[in-house]
């Protein structure tokens, strides 16, 4: 569950109009939301706020009944480790780790997610492997050097990392922008499947409106901010 109320955010105090100005946004637990808008409308900033890396100047961000903007920095970091899976646009993986190790990294900083991962499989390694297989990566690919994987395959590893340990919230920041149309749809469907399996909320950000049809709910960030948006 995600709730934003009266959230105001400026990168600099002198900024004329805020980068983020959201009166109200509510996303139910398990909901899959398509968040879109043109480049520079504040998507990345909103995601940083949701992930708890930055805090709003005003307003409240409530994740899973917790006002994360009121937590201390380290508590927010721990909250993110425990409850949020994050997928970047591209280059999601640490090049010096194998795909399996990259996935395991997802619960490296969270005891809670390690515990939850062990609910599904006898070991963290097996759980990582299970997720990768579910996302369509063969056994051979799971131990290959990350640099030898295609971008599509890399994004699946990133998705597995986001899902390991069943975090309640998955944030995907244009994860399909480097993929071709066919792969995009397949990737989004895989995300849906996994999110459904763990009953995770999925916030999917993209400027590619062709994907909109796949989601039950979509939010236009420009409209959400009252249509008065000024580029950051």
């Amino acid at each position, binding site marked *: 569950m995600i709730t934003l109320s009266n959230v105001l955010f400026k990168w600099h105090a002198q900024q004329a109009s805020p980068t983020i100005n959201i009166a109200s946004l509510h996303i139910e637990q398990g909901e899959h939301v398509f968040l879109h808008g043109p480049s520079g409308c504040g998507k*990345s900033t909103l*995601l*940083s706020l949701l*992930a708890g*890396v*930055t805090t709003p100047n005003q307003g409240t961000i409530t994740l899973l009944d917790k006002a994360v903007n009121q937590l201390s*920095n*380290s508590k927010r*970091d*721990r909250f*993110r*480790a*425990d409850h*949020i899976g*994050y997928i*970047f*646009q591209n*280059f*999601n*993986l*640490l*090049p*010096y*780790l194998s795909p399996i*190790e990259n996935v*395991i*990294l*997802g619960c*490296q*900083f*969270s005891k809670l997610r390690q515990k939850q991962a062990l609910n599904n499989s006898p070991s963290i390694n097996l759980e990582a492997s299970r997720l990768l297989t579910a996302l369509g990566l063969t056994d051979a690919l799971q131990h290959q050097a990350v640099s030898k994987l295609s971008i599509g395959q890399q994004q699946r590893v990133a998705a597995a*990392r986001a899902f390991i340990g069943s975090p309640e919230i998955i944030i995907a*920041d244009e994860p399909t922008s480097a993929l071709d149309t066919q792969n995009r749809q397949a990737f989004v469907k895989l995300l849906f499947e996994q999110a459904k399996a763990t009953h995770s909320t999925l916030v999917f950000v993209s400027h590619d409106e062709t994907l909109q049809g796949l989601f039950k709910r979509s939010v236009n960030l420009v409209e959400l901010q009252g249509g008065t948006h000024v580029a950051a």
Partner: protein
Amino acid sequence: MSLLKLAIKSLLNRKASALLTLFTIAISVMLLMSIERVRVDAKSSFSNTISGTDLIVGARTGDIQLLLSSVFRIGHANNGVSWHSYQYITQQRGVKWAIPLSLGDSHKGLAVLGTNKDYFNHYRFGKKQPLRFASGQQFNHLFEVVLGSEVASSLNYKLGDKVVIAHGMGNTSFHNHDDNPFTVVGILEPTGTPVDKTLHIPLAAIDTIHGKSHTHEADHVEDESHEHEHEHEHEHEHDEINLVGNPKQITAFLLGFDSPLYTLQVRRNINQYKPEALLAIMPGVTLRELWEMLSIVEKILLLFSIVVVLISLLGMLTSLLSSLNQRRRELAILRSVGARPWHIFTLISVESILITGLGCLLGIVLFYGLMLLSADYLQSHAGISLNIALLSSYELMLLAAIIAAGFIVGLIPATRAYFYSLADGMSIKI
């Protein structure tokens, strides 16, 4: 997967630059350790060269020149001490023993020392250790020679071998008296001092190899010594006379007293001795002075090696800082999975400690390799006996200081990464 494992994997991913940095540190550590080891060992080899001798007497020159020429066989004393003065001074009250030294001849580049039997009984080195025979005994006849340990080992001489001794220094001499070979009768145990590189022959034999007929000389000596007989006693009168002879002059001589109280008194007398300009030095004092003089060089060496270590650490700083910009993505990914800025800080710190630590380890390995390779050379060419022992607490302290310096240097990129990870957040730059 711990941060340590992450740091190792991340370093392995940047093998080339990490290894280069590591090697730079290793070489600088090797350099520093070697210089320190040689310095410490040189100092102890040095101050252990002679002990138990109260005064060294020679022709008037500088204190240090006299020490160098008489004990270290470095340089050449232009003047000597007349035999008459030697005899006069050694009769002074309190003189327990006297060792005449006559230098200037060589055998295959090694010094030949003409002396008496007191040399084997009273000469001391290190912590007042006497000379010991590895085999054989001291000379009892004119054409007998006692070898220092290195002379025997490097020239492969054994007891009973015949050795030809030339006049003058250096390998090539004009007068090779093949007709006067010396028989090896004794080989000394190693001392780590110039004694090891010395051939000891009876003082009387020096004149002989200089072309004087020894038979005539010996007769003459006998006449002369009878005149002194009533003044001082010799235990083995006849042998002693034959072996010491009656040279015109000697290079220098060593004195030992019944009590150290005589030292200053006799020293003053010698320095004011009218018939001849002489100089008496106390070896301990002059050794210290000499070391003080050399210690400037030694301090400069130390300074240079410390600078080399600092440069190598700056090299590490450069490579860590330049890689950091390319790693902002890596840091953002770590942040996205819940790593705190402190984790990022630790990660980079661990990397710098790893590089410095491994660099030190490799440096120690290289250091021991270098020591093993150069110990023989240093022993034979510089007279420094290297101590290939475990690391001393002082050396361990040096290593700890280097690792600490590496850690401190590593704080700079670590702090930078810390702030990058705060500022970048989830947005990946580059």
